[in-house]
């Protein structure tokens, strides 16, 4: 039924246009998926609701992929869900393998999106009930797990990983407190009262930080030249074998996390990276261009975006900023999301689900066709590319909210990103903490308000107990290992030599 609605020539045209505009918008930093959808929402008002939402779904899929492109090519994430893609995707690009990185991201996203749509069709109503069982304690426990496993992102130095993460949480405290209304750590500066925006921070830490590190060398971070035919930029059989389980795991994980209101694609992508590094036979390759580190998270964030449609359609709870704007669109068309939507407007719901699927197909086709073109951008010599990336970072930071403050903030974090990179800290951990901080704090305080036993509430509810114990173990195990190693070293040093 859904496909008969979605597969009209006009709707297909809208899906194609949505994907293309989406990729362009997603590749421009500063104009992330939420602003992209918001920019085009008014355009769709003249259309049938079904055509409109198809265009928006296609646009959303396109913007997610556009963010991946800049992450891989110039280490600048377009939105928070593609931050992890920088870790291995950009390393792959430096090794002349930008094509396979972009290819596996597109294929992984397609598979994840396809399975996600099937799951959405089959289990929406049942899952909606499950996601309701996820209260503030469970949400907090999940975020805690995401934050404490962050050291796995960082390589060797767990201590510096935790310092980066806590620093991110501290930065997340800046600005209006949602419960009391206090403007924390704002020092009377209006821009600070709004809090630290993720995007200028991420553009600075990753994009500008990387450029500064490359600027030291006369030739920059030389990107290996490769061949750029369609076959050369596609993932090889080996890549595919290494990625297939990462894609499957990423899909399942992503969809489950996507169902939870508020968690969304970002958490899904970080958790997937952690899982892949744990599951891998060669974890030492992560951070140095492991293709699983791109395949897993990219599948996860796409599956999560699909999963987020479940609470939106069945309960009217948006799972992310973008779905919130789409929800606004639904309401403007006079549609009321909620359990009744499936019964009252079936053609619309199934049209939307089918359009998600069509958007995924379109994305795969168009992105594959364009990958050689994107990869060619890397052939520009670094002496030209470097100033261009800086211009790109500055315009991106500015156009987010049209103010120079954000540009200054981006610059400061660029210097910090350079120092962090050189000194072995983890910009990714900082960014994750900054994104999750406000949500985690709200969930923590709501939990403590409803709790009669203080922190005990996290251990008394089954789901949150499992997640909390896992989160604590993630901290305790490396610490115990470090203490043991230190005592063994001391023991060895105190023994007389020979």
């Amino acid at each position, binding site marked *: 039924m859904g496909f008969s609605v979605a597969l009209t020539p006009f709707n297909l045209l809208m899906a194609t246009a949505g994907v293309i505009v989406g990729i362009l918008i997603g590749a*421009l930093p500063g*104009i992330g998926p939420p602003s992209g959808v918001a*920019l085009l929402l008014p355009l769709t008002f003249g259309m049938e609701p079904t055509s409109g939402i198809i265009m928006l779904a296609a646009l959303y899929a396109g913007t997610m992929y556009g963010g991946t492109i800049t992450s891989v090519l110039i280490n600048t994430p377009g939105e928070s869900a593609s931050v992890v893609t920088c870790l291995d995707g950009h390393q792959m690009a430096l090794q002349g393998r930008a094509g396979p990185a972009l290819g596996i991201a597109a294929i992984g996203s397609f598979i994840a999106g396809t399975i996600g749509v099937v799951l959405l069709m089959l289990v929406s109503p049942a899952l909606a009930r499950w996601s309701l069982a996820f209260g503030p304690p469970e949400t907090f426990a999940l975020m805690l797990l995401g934050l404490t496993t962050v050291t796995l992102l960082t390589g060797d130095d767990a*201590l*510096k990983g*935790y*310092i980066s993460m*806590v*620093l991110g*949480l*501290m930065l997340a*405290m800046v600005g209006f*407190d949602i*419960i*009391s209304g*206090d403007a*924390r*750590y704002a020092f009377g500066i209006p821009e600070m009262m709004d809090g630290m925006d993720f995007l200028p921070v991420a553009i600075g830490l990753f994009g*500008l930080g990387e*450029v*500064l590190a490359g*600027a*030291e*060398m*006369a030739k920059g971070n030389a990107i290996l030249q490769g061949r750029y035919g369609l076959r050369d930029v596609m993932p090889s059989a080996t890549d595919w074998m290494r990625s297939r389980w990462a894609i499957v795991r990423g899909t399942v994980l992503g969809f489950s996390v996507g169902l939870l209101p508020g968690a969304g694609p970002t958490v899904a992508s970080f958790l997937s990276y952690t899982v892949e590094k744990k599951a891998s036979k060669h974890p030492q390759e992560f951070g140095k261009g492991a293709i699983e580190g791109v395949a897993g998270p990219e599948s996860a964030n796409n599956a999560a975006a699909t999963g987020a449609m479940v609470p939106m359609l069945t309960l009217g709870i948006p799972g992310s900023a973008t779905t919130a704007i789409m929800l606004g669109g639904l309401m403007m068309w006079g549609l009321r999301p909620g359990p009744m939507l499936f019964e009252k407007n079936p053609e619309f719901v199934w049209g939307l689900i089918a359009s998600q699927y069509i958007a995924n197909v379109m994305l795969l086709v168009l992105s594959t066709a364009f990958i050689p073109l994107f990869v060619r951008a890397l052939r520009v010599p670094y*002496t*030209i590319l*470097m*100033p*261009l990336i*800086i*211009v790109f970072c*500055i*315009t991106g930071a*500015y*156009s987010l909210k*049209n103010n*120079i403050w954000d*540009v*200054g903030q981006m*610059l400061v974090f*660029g*210097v910090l990103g350079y*120092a962090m990179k*050189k*000194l*072995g800290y983890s910009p990714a951990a900082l960014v994750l903490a900054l994104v999750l901080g406000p949500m985690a*704090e709200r969930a*923590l*305080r709501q939990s*403590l*308000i409803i709790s009669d036993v203080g922190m005990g509430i996290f251990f008394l509810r089954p789901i949150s107990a499992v997640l909390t114990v896992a989160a604590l173990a993630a901290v305790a195990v490396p610490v115990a290992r470090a203490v043991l190693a230190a005592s063994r070293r001391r023991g060895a040093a105190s023994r007389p030599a020979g």
Partner: protein
Amino acid sequence: MRTADRIAGAALLAFAVAFCAGALKNYTYSGPGGPGSAFLPFWLGVIMAVLAVWLLVGALRSRDPGAAWLPRGEGLRRLILVLGVTAAFVALLKFVGMILGTALFLIVLMRVLDRNPWPLTLSVAAATAGLNYLVFTYWLRVPFPVSVFGF
């Protein structure tokens, strides 16, 4: 690296203490019915202080000076140049405007840093500024700062 760790450890410790003190002084630790706005900042400050002490003690006890993390000579000159020109661009953005500023920034960086030939420099600068104008100002209607010339 060891010196950098010592400085970072001390700075983070000072920051953590100030963060805690600021939370307790200006915001409420515990409000009616639950934790207040100082609750999480205070504990984050405590955790950061512990981590900073850990880093500091490790760096003070370490005998290995580690590799230098800042470049020297030509590398340092390039780093300062790129950073300086970028900072100047950001500081002057309000007066030179985004489009004109972009062109000037590219010309300065491409000429001074790497001595790219003039024709190449000028065409890249003009093309980028033009594209910037088309996409952001014309299509997306981003209100960029403008120079006295109106662009």
